[in-house]
């Protein structure tokens, strides 16, 4: 079993603690994405798994073997760097063969594996070229090819798409997804700050913030049932609207008052002792729709900005939350003018409630 | 922490690195350290012992005679003679003595020695002695004994005093300053203007001039000396002035330093953000104003780098000084003086080491205080990829 187990992993640089007690179990063959804002520690965590950074305390196990003290080349990992890290003075072939040559594999074996990898990534016509004669996307594929040639148990990706332009990013993302399918027994750990990559590639997503794990789960699970305010706002674009509220009454259903005075009933069971407590109400922009005449609504507000994108209309509603407009994402071209006062509603099962510490009250 | 544990923490490979670098640094420091220590030593010590022993006391053998008797003092049947064998208060101490020259350290000090014939001698470390005999002293000359002496290390500034006054190093120092300072400052101005023109102005022949400048950096000075010397002589004859003057050497150093100066400064000025210069142009500033008010202040690091380079180069130069300033004794610069001393005072290491150290003192001070700029100057245009 070539899964990974991270037990209470911590990292400090001198007096500064960067990672605080990470516990994680990754099954073999899983595609796990570490995602989070800059500085959350995701790259550090990846580099610790690779062996490029020392683990301050805690245990890292790969394939059942504790590898804290094992050098990177012996951990059964391969890494794809953000800047590709190709050896600029070697041809594509030599770049991919380098690791095997160090390990003194036979020439025939090296050739077989290099050509096989080149074949998968359509690099065969470029084998004799130098990296500087390749485009960014091709270089990234060579970096992936080099990793494949190591025949690793765990594939590590450190923000591999950040240096590519938008169109190339989509194409390469699809290639990585296909790669994952061709290698079902290889575990893949992928670091990114882009939640689109996370949502599309991952079997499970690990959301990190300031050295802590905020939530681990399948993409849709994170989308539909975020465990706290941080995850709720991180996943989804534009971010979920958060409106301050007060819990009026707990129980099988909960009644809250939104800022602005409107009373809303939620299908969320809460402890009756929570009555009177402050809370945060959440609803995603894409779940909001314009309320018809006479229909029950969540809130009413003035449209401050209208952005017509063709496929959606973004409406910025002011007045409810101080300094922050509420955003509604209406499909198609909405016939709404700036300055109009409109009412908005959303399906009851799409409503979120977070307690005063930011934890979701959804069970 | 336990030494073994600490070593294991650092790791053996790392330890080897530390030690290797330490060995290398010591090797590199040793030569300079040698003359520095030597220049401060007493010249007699210098001539007989290696400078690495300078801090330890040196041991010598000396022969002295005890007194002849004079007015012997009688103490209860014994004739006693006292005195001191060490004549100068030289800080020397006696560590042992002997009665035969082959064994100058046979006997301990402080303990009375039975010399036979009823004579006893007690010698102390500071040289005072007590000589007892049961009969009057009758030797015509004092008894001879052999002392093993230790002298503490002596350090002195005497060598420097000698060198600065008598050997003319002081004069040469002034000469070096006279040559170097103008030859550092004037090239900066001329080269800065030229560098700006080559960096940011458009005109035909620009690439050609840049190529010429790069090529000239490499031209050996030897190619310039003969015709220039003739030219100077001819000008001297024509105008009735001496051919070897400070003005001549200033111009020579300025010109010889020009290619590198223009190269270094141009590289830097070219790297300045284009937008700053363009926005100044849009604001209506002429090239002259742009240069003086914007480019020159921004180029300070490059100017400093070149200044240090040029300073060290001119201060340490020997060839150009010998050719353009001549070898008359009071016209010599420090390098020339040192060279002459090697010839005339080749064996007097106390003079050579002190002179050498004076020569290198100013460059070393400049180096250590402004190293950063020197390094940056070296790196300009030198770092290239594979």
């Amino acid at each position, binding site marked *: 079993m070539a899964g990974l187990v991270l037990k209470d992993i911590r990292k400090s640089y001198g007096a500064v603690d960067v990672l605080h007690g990470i516990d994680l179990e990754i099954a073999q063959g899983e595609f796990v994405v570490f995602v989070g804002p800059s500085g959350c520690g995701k790259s550090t965590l990846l580099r610790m798994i690779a062996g490029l950074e020392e683990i301050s305390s805690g245990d890292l196990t790969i394939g059942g073997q504790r590898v804290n003290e094992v050098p990177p080349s012996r951990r059964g990992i391969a890494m794809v760097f953000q800047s590709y890290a190709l050896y600029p003075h070697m041809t594509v072939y030599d770049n991919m063969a380098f690791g095997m040559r160090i390990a003194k594999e036979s020439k025939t074996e090296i050739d077989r594996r290099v050509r096989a990898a080149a074949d998968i990534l359509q690099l065969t016509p470029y084998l004799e070229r130098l990296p500087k004669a390749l485009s960014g996307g091709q270089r990234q594929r060579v970096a992936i090819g080099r990793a494949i040639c190591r025949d690793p148990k765990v594939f590590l990706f450190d923000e591999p798409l950040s240096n590519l332009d938008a169109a190339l990013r989509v194409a390469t993302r699809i290639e990585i997804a296909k790669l994952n399918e061709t290698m079902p027994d290889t575990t893949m750990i992928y670091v990114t700050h882009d939640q689109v990559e996370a949502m599309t590639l991952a079997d499970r997503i690990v959301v990190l913030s300031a050295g802590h794990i905020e939530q681990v789960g399948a993409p849709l699970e994170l989308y539909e049932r975020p465990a706290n305010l941080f995850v709720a706002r991180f996943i989804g674009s534009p971010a979920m609207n958060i409106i301050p509220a007060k819990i009026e009454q707990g129980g099988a259903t909960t009644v809250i008052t939104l800022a602005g005075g409107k009373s809303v009933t939620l299908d969320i069971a809460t402890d009756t002792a929570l009555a009177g407590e402050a809370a945060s109400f959440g609803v995603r922009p894409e779940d909001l729709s314009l309320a018809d005449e006479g229909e029950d609504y969540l809130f009413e507000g003035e449209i401050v900005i209208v952005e017509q994108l063709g496929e959606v209309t973004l409406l910025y509603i002011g007045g409810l939350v101080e300094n922050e407009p509420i955003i509604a994402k209406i499909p198609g071209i909405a016939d709404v003018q700036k300055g109009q006062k409109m009412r908005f509603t959303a399906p009851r099962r799409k409503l979120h409630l977070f307690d005063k510490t930011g934890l979701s009250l959804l069970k | 922490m336990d030494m073994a544990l600490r070593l294991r923490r650092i790791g053996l490979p790392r330890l080897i690195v530390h030690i*290797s*670098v330490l060995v290398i640094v010591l090797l590199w420091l*040793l030569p300079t350290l040698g003359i520095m220590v030597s220049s401060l030593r007493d010249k007699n010590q210098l001539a007989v012992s290696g400078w690495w022993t300078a801090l330890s006391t040196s041991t010598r053998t000396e022969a002295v005679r005890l007194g002849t008797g004079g007015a012997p003092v009688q103490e209860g049947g014994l004739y006693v003679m006292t005195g001191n064998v060490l004549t100068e208060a030289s800080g020397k101490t006696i560590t042992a003595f002997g009665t035969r020259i082959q064994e100058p350290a046979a006997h301990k000090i402080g303990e009375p020695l039975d010399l036979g014939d009823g004579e006893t001698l007690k010698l102390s470390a500071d040289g005072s002695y007590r000589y007892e005999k049961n009969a009057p002293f009758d030797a015509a000359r004092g008894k001879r004994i052999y002392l093993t002496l230790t002298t503490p290390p002596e350090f002195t500034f005497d060598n420097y005093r000698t060198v600065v006054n008598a050997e003319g190093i002081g004069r040469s120092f002034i000469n070096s300053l006279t040559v170097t300072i103008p030859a550092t400052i004037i090239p900066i101005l*001329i*080269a800065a203007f030229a560098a700006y023109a080559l960096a940011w102005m458009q005109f035909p022949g620009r690439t050609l001039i840049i190529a010429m400048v790069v090529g000239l950096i490499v031209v050996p000075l030897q190619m310039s000396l*003969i015709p220039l010397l003739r030219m100077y002589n001819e000008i001297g004859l024509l105008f009735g002035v001496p051919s070897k003057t400070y003005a001549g050497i200033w111009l020579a150093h300025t010109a010889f330093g020009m290619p590198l100066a223009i190269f270094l400064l141009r590289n830097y000025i070219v790297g300045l953000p284009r937008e700053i210069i363009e926005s100044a142009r849009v604001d209506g500033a002429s090239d002259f104003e742009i240069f003086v008010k914007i480019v020159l202040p921004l180029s300070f690091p490059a100017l400093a780098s070149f200044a240090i380079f040029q300073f060290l180069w001119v201060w*340490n130069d020997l060839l150009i000084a010998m050719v353009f300033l001549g070898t008359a004794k009071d016209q010599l610069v420090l390098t020339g003086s040192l060279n002459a001393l090697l010839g005339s005072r080749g064996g007097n290491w106390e003079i050579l080491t002190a002179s050498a150290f004076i020569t290198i003192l100013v460059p070393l001070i400049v180096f250590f205080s402004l190293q950063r700029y020197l390094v940056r100057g070296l790196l300009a245009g030198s770092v290239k990829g594979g």
Partner: protein
Amino acid sequence: MTGQIVSAIGVMIVGVLACIAYFYLSNKLLDLVFPVPDGNVEAASKGLRRRAIVRPWLFLGPAVLLLTVYLVYPVIATFILSFYNRTGEDFVGFSNYQWALQDRDFRQSIFNNILWLAVVPAACTFFGLVIAVLTDRIWWGNIAKSLVFMPMAISFVGASVIWKFIYDYRANGETQIGILNAVVQFFGGNPEVWIAMPFWNNFFLMAILIWIQTGFAMVILSAALRGIPEETIEAAVIDGANGWQIFWKIMVPQIWGTIAVVWTTITILVLKIFDIVLTMTNGQWNTMVLANLMFDWMFRGGGDSGRSAAIAVIIMIAVLPIMVWNIRRASREAEGH
């Protein structure tokens, strides 16, 4: 003495003021000659254009003048002089060069120069590289580098005194004050007059230049090493390469260009250098090199400009390939502007 200092300061101030005055006045004059009147766009453009054509030459003028007089003209003149006799009056064709090829001192110098060229650049580059790599990994690396670099600030003459002291010779059995002989004697060997040893004395002289120039190589190579993307080294670590393999297969190939620059720069210095041989041996004991030989002939017997010019030209020819390479490199970069 104070008179000298005062006059030196005076000249400096005058010189600097003169420079400033030249630049300022000439530019002002240009602006006067080509006015840029407000209102009349066409006349203004013409004025600006004219200024832009003349001004670069104002900026460049003094520099180009100095370069031409002190470098370009002499190079050509020396070249021509090499075809003339000792006083420069009679044309003698190639006879100076023919003489050189026969002259024993000249052949010895060529041999020695080849020795110097083979050993010194290689040694400096190699040691510089090794020290750069080693010092980058320890916390006191910068101090160490500083100390290795320090000899560069010392004049060649000063360095020669320092090393002459190291090489000092006393008779066998006596206390040695030169550290090299002291070490040799300590280990039971006989002290030698190092700078007079046949053939090997060249290497003892070379040691001086290596001592001085290794710091230069080290500083530049250290910067180049730091420019290597850290991730290529990390990738090699993951690929299983050890320190030695990483050094030779990943790091050195990526700084090849810089190594070439260091090598060629030191090569040129070796060809030009004259102070070390002059002060240590003055060419005796077969240590003569071309630069010293040339200097010798400049003044020997009243000076033989033909012969010394010929030697200078030969030094120049040795330097030529590097000069061409440098110019091509610089042109390729200047093209971006």
